[in-house]
């Protein structure tokens, strides 16, 4: 039973980790706690649903499902398109609201605006797709039995694998590419980056694109392994913040480890508290972190 909880914790933690990467960057580089970030997960999941409608039209061309997975190439392509669409959505929000507020008002006004945006985004989803849960596929999938009596779905294994691939690629981007190094430079010292020739406005857009793409993929993976519903992102606000704060704002690895810690503690908590209180676990984690280590476990200090 313990091993099963650990496996479930790692899997749900992987989704939280992907979502928290963007939130963590936002807190450090955009310098505000973006309450609307988790809605990007919701939109990513629903965008993929739309694109899936198009790509399945070509399913003869793509062939059927991949191996034991419940989906095939159409969903993967839809996921990539969704990452693009979600990035566009994030850039539009940035241009219309956050960029303007960031210039004049204080950062708390941005936090506050993100509240309003979150509300808007969540309810527009209800308007377009309705309030009821939706699934990408109605196929039933059979769990695979791993040693230690742990059951996992093949889709969940895919989820974990994709998360690892994304984190490694992001690591390479941040350390090898000039755009990635510029992003880390802006994160540490925006003024110095500016006088060194970094176009900070562009870096900020990169941050939105990366955060939104990761969020979109996390949303699709959540939709794949759980379900799509308008409150998908809303329910993840606290887990995402817990992971980002636990990891320390601006630290990608911190966000990943934070995500795993959040996923594990949520799933292990049911051994000691009633399942109905599980959603409060990230909040308790946040309080603990803020009380003992306000900079997070891996917060970068100068």
């Amino acid at each position, binding site marked *: 039973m313990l091993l099963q909880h650990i496996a479930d914790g790692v899997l749900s933690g992987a989704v939280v980790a992907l979502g928290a990467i963007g939130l963590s960057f936002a807190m450090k580089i955009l310098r505000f706690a973006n309450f609307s970030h988790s809605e990007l997960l919701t939109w990513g999941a629903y965008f993929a649903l739309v694109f899936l409608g198009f790509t399945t039209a070509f399913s003869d061309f793509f062939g059927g499902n991949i191996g034991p997975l419940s989906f095939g190439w159409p969903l993967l392509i839809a996921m990539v398109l969704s990452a693009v669409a979600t990035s566009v959505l994030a850039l539009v929000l940035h241009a219309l609201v956050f960029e303007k507020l960031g210039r004049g008002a204080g950062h708390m006004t941005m936090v506050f605006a993100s509240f309003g945006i979150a509300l808007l985004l969540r309810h527009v989803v209800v308007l377009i797709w309705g309030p009821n849960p939706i699934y990408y596929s109605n196929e039933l999938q059979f769990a695979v039995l791993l040693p230690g009596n742990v059951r996992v779905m093949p889709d969940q294994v895919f989820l974990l694998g994709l998360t690892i691939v994304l984190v490694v690629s992001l690591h390479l981007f941040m*350390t090898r590419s*000039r755009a990635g*190094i*510029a992003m*880390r*430079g802006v994160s*540490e*010292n925006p*003024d*110095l*980056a*500016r*006088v*060194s*020739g*970094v*176009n*900070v406005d562009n870096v900020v857009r990169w941050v939105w694109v990366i955060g939104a793409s990761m969020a979109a993929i996390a949303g699709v993976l959540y939709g794949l392994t759980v379900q799509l519903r308008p409150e998908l992102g809303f329910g993840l606000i606290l887990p995402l913040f817990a992971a980002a704060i636990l990891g320390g704002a601006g630290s990608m690895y911190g966000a990943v480890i934070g995500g795993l810690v959040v996923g594990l503690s949520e799933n292990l908590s049911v051994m000691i508290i009633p399942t109905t209180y599980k959603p409060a676990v990230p909040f308790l984690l946040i309080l603990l972190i803020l009380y003992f280590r306000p900079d997070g476990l891996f917060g*970068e200090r*100068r």
Partner: protein
Amino acid sequence: MTRNVLEASGIFAGYSPELPILHGVDLNVGQGEVVTIIGPNGAGKSTFIKAIAGLVTVTAGNVQLNGRNITHIRSHRLAASGVGFVPQNGNIFTTLSIHENLVLGAISLRSKPARQRIAEIYRQYPVLQERQFEKAGILSGGQRQILAVARALLTHPRLMLLDEPTAGLSPKAAAELFSVVRSLVDSGSSVLMVEQNARAALRVSDRGYVLAEGRNHADGTAAALLDDNDIRHIFLGMPQQYADHHIAGQNGERDHYNPRESN
């Protein structure tokens, strides 16, 4: 007659338009010159350098770089237009490796020339190459300043702006840094720096400007300023309060040691 790299005239600047810190400062830097700005605390020396760099808003006046107007330049275009800026605090990225610091310094170049320039910098400053993969945060004070200067040098700036480059350095490290400053001229840059360590800075400078209360107070060749009795007393060694007190009563005599050209 030397050509001027930097011509700044009538600069008003500050953090808010109602409260300018600079009240019409004029300053030129000629080709191949090292120019130092000295003056008491709060005279607006650093503000002037930041205004040139686009970090402080210029509300009136004109800044020309090689005859091109750069008054309201956006700071990230500065490096590409030929100005290297070394701020006083936080002038390197401590969480990045030394190599990554240089990559950022060369970000306005295309990637191939950037690689070549970084290689040249490594030849010039071997200490940086030896430790290129270490985090810049572990460097000593003097090495940090060298990295900061090297970072700003990558774009072959025609003008280097240095804000208090020797602040907090040991005398030995400061001396080394001043020789680096002098060598910048040999590699084709002109230098404008602000220094608390005024006497040492003037010794490696060609000319100097004295600012007080956001206005030009005096200027002249470094040697003349070093020789000038009043300047020596007020700015090169006397306690600051005394200097401030003195300036107030000195306005009438300004022209005495102010060989400013009338144009």
